[in-house]
């Protein structure tokens, strides 16, 4: 199984292909709906260094605050990425992200963005909140916690051997588009809809 250390450069990302199974280690930032709106509406220079050459994880974690004030992730599986489709490509371009972790895949606008900027879509297994929380070793910092609440805040985390699959690469390929096409053809056949 291939390993990928974050942050990383464009050349490394361009080598990745749909279907590659990867283990990520290094620094990742989380963000979902509120975070994407916020990132797009202004240039947020305080978080920009954490996005540059790293990946953003679509997740709304369950977080435990310990008595001494430090945080750990209790459950942290991916959330549906499709909601960020209108913003994702722009966020990638604006902040120099190298990828996105989520579930369910994304659409053509994002796929074009991945190709243009040199980034990938990494699919984590939906619902595996415990397996993935165990790969999150440390919470380093958090942005917009008071404003957005725990699930929507931007958490800077350190991961170790975090398992993902490349389902959209930087060369215009999408496993989601492929599976959708073949399954819909099969549906038409099963229902006798092919003309």
């Amino acid at each position, binding site marked *: 199984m291939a390993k990928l250390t974050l942050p990383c450069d464009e050349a490394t990302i361009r080598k990745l292909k749909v279907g590659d199974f990867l283990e990520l280690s290094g620094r990742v930032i989380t963000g979902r709906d509120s975070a994407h709106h916020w990132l797009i509406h202004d240039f947020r220079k305080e978080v920009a260094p954490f996005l540059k050459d790293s990946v953003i994880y679509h997740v709304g974690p369950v977080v435990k605050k310990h008595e001494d004030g430090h945080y750990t992730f209790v459950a942290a599986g991916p959330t*549906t990425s499709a909601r960020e489709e209108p913003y994702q490509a722009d966020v990638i371009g604006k902040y120099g992200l190298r990828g996105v972790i989520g579930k369910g895949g994304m659409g053509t606008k994002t796929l074009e963005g991945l190709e243009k900027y040199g980034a990938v879509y990494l699919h984590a297994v939906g*619902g595996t909140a415990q397996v993935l929380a165990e790969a999150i070793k440390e919470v380093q910092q958090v942005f917009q916690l008071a404003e957005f609440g725990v699930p929507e805040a931007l958490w800077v985390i350190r991961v170790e051997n975090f398992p993902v699959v490349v389902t959209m690469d930087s060369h215009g390929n999408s496993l989601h588009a492929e599976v959708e096409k073949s399954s819909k053809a099969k549906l038409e056949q099963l229902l006798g809809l092919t003309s």
Partner: protein
Amino acid sequence: MLTREQWTEKFVEVIAHASSQLPPDVLEALKRGRDAEEPGSLAAKALDSILTNVEMAKGNWQPICQDTGTPLVWIHHPVGMSTRMLTAAFEEAVRQATAKQLLRPNAVDTLTDKNTGHGQGPGIPTVHCEEWDSPDAEVRVILKGGGCENCGAQYSLPNAKLKADRNLDGVRRCILDAIAQAQGKGCAPGIIGACFGGDRGSGFVESKRQLLRRLDDHNPVPELDTMERDVLDQGNQLGIGPMGFGGKTTVLGVKVGNLARLPASYFVSVSYMCWANRRAGARITPKGEVQWLN
């Protein structure tokens, strides 16, 4: 007779079960799916991860998935028990379970867009109470996540595009279409609860109630039993696979019920439940003894 506080305690226990302990029939179906996939394929790896996750959640009594969903509960209660009390006790149980991190704070006020913070709000949880003749009560809970709930669909027959008429074949066509539309987005492999008939509201409620059934049971209506098997088989031929990675395991079960309909209407309502089919049931005696049901 239990007090309201005691009912709350029992309900918290049932919620804890649902959140962390995947029912054995679902676990078996996932294992069969993993064994059917090509070793080393993305589908097999995804199912391996799922199975490891199920074990970890079980051992640590931690949420299987961080989206602990909408708690749905069906309560059968003895004659004369107050449904208002039971509903209030269950709502309180959701707040307590949220405070204990068995559930994620999952209720958002739709006017202010603020999370209520305690997991409860108008319509969350949904509580269905029904009186029966037994002195015991029976509580059945489902935690239904948002990702899979977004994959639900409702059809009004006839539907020309699917060549679906107002008959059982038409119902089958709609359910298969719903599985294809969902792709992997509802965290496939999923479980389908469907209902034909009813109005737009009652049809969806019945489709969800179907999700209380064990995956290995048989529909008592022979035509529906056949349909469930056919749709399961054909759904898996679509090749969507776990998470939509491609593969043989797309659906783990199909459960279909029906309601009467108006002459003018013919609805098919389909609810998609993710592999994390968090379902728990308990029978509770008047003394408060708990017997777990699968």
